[in-house]
């Protein structure tokens, strides 16, 4: 069985976890100011890289905490897990850093998402 390293609990079986999709998506500061195109892209459009992907995971049948992980979508290997709010040490390996050019501003809370 695939083991995933929860930042709180260490290596645990994958069936205890739930994936929450792409990580580090910054919510626009002022959604009302966006046009429909930008808003729908924020809501629905996610990267689907062949390679390293930053994802949110929840140790739902364990400590219940959310955290982030870098996973290689080709090998299904977890390269790194790190707490929510932190940045990965090997961020340069991410295939497509998904930072929309139009919405780079964010509050402190949003940036830590």
């Amino acid at each position, binding site marked *: 069985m695939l083991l995933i390293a929860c930042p*709180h*609990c260490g290596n645990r*079986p994958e*069936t205890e976890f739930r994936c929450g999709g792409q990580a580090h998506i910054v919510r626009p500061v002022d959604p009302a100011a966006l046009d429909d195109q930008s808003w729908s892209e924020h809501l629905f459009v996610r990267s689907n890289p062949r390679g390293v992907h930053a994802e949110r995971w929840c140790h739902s*049948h*364990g*400590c*219940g905490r959310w955290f982030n992980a870098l996973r290689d979508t080709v090998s299904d290997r977890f390269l790194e897990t790190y707490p929510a709010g932190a940045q990965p040490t090997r961020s340069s390996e991410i295939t497509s850093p998904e930072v929309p050019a139009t919405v780079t501003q964010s509050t402190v809370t949003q940036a830590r998402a």
Partner: protein
Amino acid sequence: MLEVRYRTARTLPLGRPVAPALPRGGILIQPAEAEARFSLRLRGPLSPGGFPLDRPINTVTGDDRRWVARLGPDEWLIGMPEGEADLLAEAAAADLRGRAHSLVDISHRNVGIDVTGALAADVLNAGCPLDLGDAAFPPGSATRTLLGKAEIVLIRHAGAVPSYRVECWRSFATYVHGFLQEAAIAAQPVERVPAR
């Protein structure tokens, strides 16, 4: 009438009388008596106070009657005899006065099943993917995990004989108990039938 049903539900953890557990070789699976359980959620600095809250995540403190298991950074599961439930609520109110916290009585939700014996880890591993070896899950460990299709809290108490407590939700108790009993049959050493 309601009170009668209330008491019945609390004293018969599996909703029906369970046949006396026959100790099979190396394994005993026994539904626990009705006990009081509390779920405590608390953030911020952990004052020791009357509660051992500042222990590492996924450990349990106390004995097999009164215990506090830390399940996550801000979550504890507390178990004790039923008669002491009111005392705990008072003690917690005094200890955590002025702190934002949540202390919920979940005695009705939880059912305990004790799994004891040399084969206990084998039986649990029939449905639990955790490494239950002494290095990875020594006595004093406690964690939420899975058993088959049910979510459980698994606690390992100290003792010469491997002794585990499986805590599950009441509606899962029949499934979990049946799962463990079947696993206990499968964990028995195969009896060789002499060739004729």
